[in-house]
């Protein structure tokens, strides 16, 4: 039986890069076992993102108000869950996640019993590995997450990840709003899901802006720490 994969591309003002990303994903060759569907979630962009995406080979989910990255990705998760996809993937719309790396994640999740597979820049440290301050933050999260959930995630801020239906059932109900990547790891661990990482090579973004601005990075770290702590407390009863 063919396994269906929903590749969710959250896009906010990505008119320059969206076409390239969608076409590159559609061009990925996964063989006969897998079928890929691109789902672009337009997070109420001010530019022509929706118009361009409408002409591409993809499913367009058009949000009427800006929800931020977490809410946008969750819309895609909901779609994937309702439409019975086997796996859902997140690939950012700014070209940072090269679609050629998709098979690596897919291969890992379909061959192991992992529920979530994260593409990490920091296992082999090749390709674009972000700025020094960003890396410092990621190291901080690594220790924070190790403290709270006892697993080592080298690249907790990576949005390049794939998850199975078991996880889809959870994330279409609850998913953190802003800065969802590190916080969702706690959520996954609290639900006893198995997280694994595979090394990937990332690129520098082609257009658009990071959802994490340098100016607010301290606020980001603080907010994530608080969110991690409360997600930990909130989901404690489940174990």
């Amino acid at each position, binding site marked *: 039986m063919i396994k269906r994969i929903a590749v969710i591309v959250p896009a906010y003002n990505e008119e320059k890069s969206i076409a390239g990303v969608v076409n590159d994903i559609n061009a990925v060759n996964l063989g006969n076992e897998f079928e890929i569907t691109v789902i672009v*979630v337009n997070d109420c962009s001010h530019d022509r993102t929706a118009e361009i995406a409408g002409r591409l080979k993809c*499913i*367009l*989910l*058009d*949000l*009427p*108000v800006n*929800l931020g990255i977490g*809410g946008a990705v*969750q*819309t895609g998760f*909901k*779609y994937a869950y*309702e439409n019975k996809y086997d796996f859902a993937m997140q690939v950012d719309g700014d070209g940072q996640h090269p679609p050629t790396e998709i098979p690596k994640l897919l291969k890992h999740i379909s061959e192991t019993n992992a529920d979530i597979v994260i593409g990490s820049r920091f296992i082999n440290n090749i390709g674009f590995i972000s700025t020094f301050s960003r890396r410092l933050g990621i190291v901080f999260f690594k220790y924070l997450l190790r403290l709270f959930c006892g697993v080592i995630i080298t690249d907790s801020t990576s949005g390049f990840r794939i998850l199975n239906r078991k996880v889809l059932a959870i994330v279409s109900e609850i998913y953190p*709003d802003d800065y969802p990547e590190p916080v969702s790891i706690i959520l996954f661990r609290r639900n006893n899901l198995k997280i694994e990482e595979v090394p990937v090579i990332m690129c520098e973004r082609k257009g658009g802006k990071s959802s994490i601005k340098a100016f607010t990075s301290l606020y980001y770290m603080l907010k994530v720490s608080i969110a991690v702590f409360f997600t930990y407390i909130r989901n404690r009863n489940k174990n």
Partner: protein
Amino acid sequence: MNNVVPVKIQIIAIVISLGFLAYIGRLIVKGKLREEYSFIWVFGALILILFSFWREGLAVIAKLLGVYAAPNLVFMVAIFGIFIYLLHISVVVSQLHEKNKKLSQEIALLKNKIEKIISDKTEK
């Protein structure tokens, strides 16, 4: 008797607090203020009215609670009340945020479904 509110200011206080209560009533009638958020305002207005009529009231209660200067009691109670109410408003905003998110996601999913139905029809 120097702790008792003078008559002139008492009349002003009565007029203002009654006007305040009337204004809250008007907002509720016109549907601009929901009943569940109006309780605290009605309650506040009634307290204002009570103390504008009961001239020695503040001094009596302050003495009862052992507060040295009566105005301090007013500040303490008022600030505490405001903090609690602000917290309540933050909770309300958070709930609205969550509901708003769910609705927007639902709209996006429905828009997609409708477009699919329309394009299926035109193909036939």
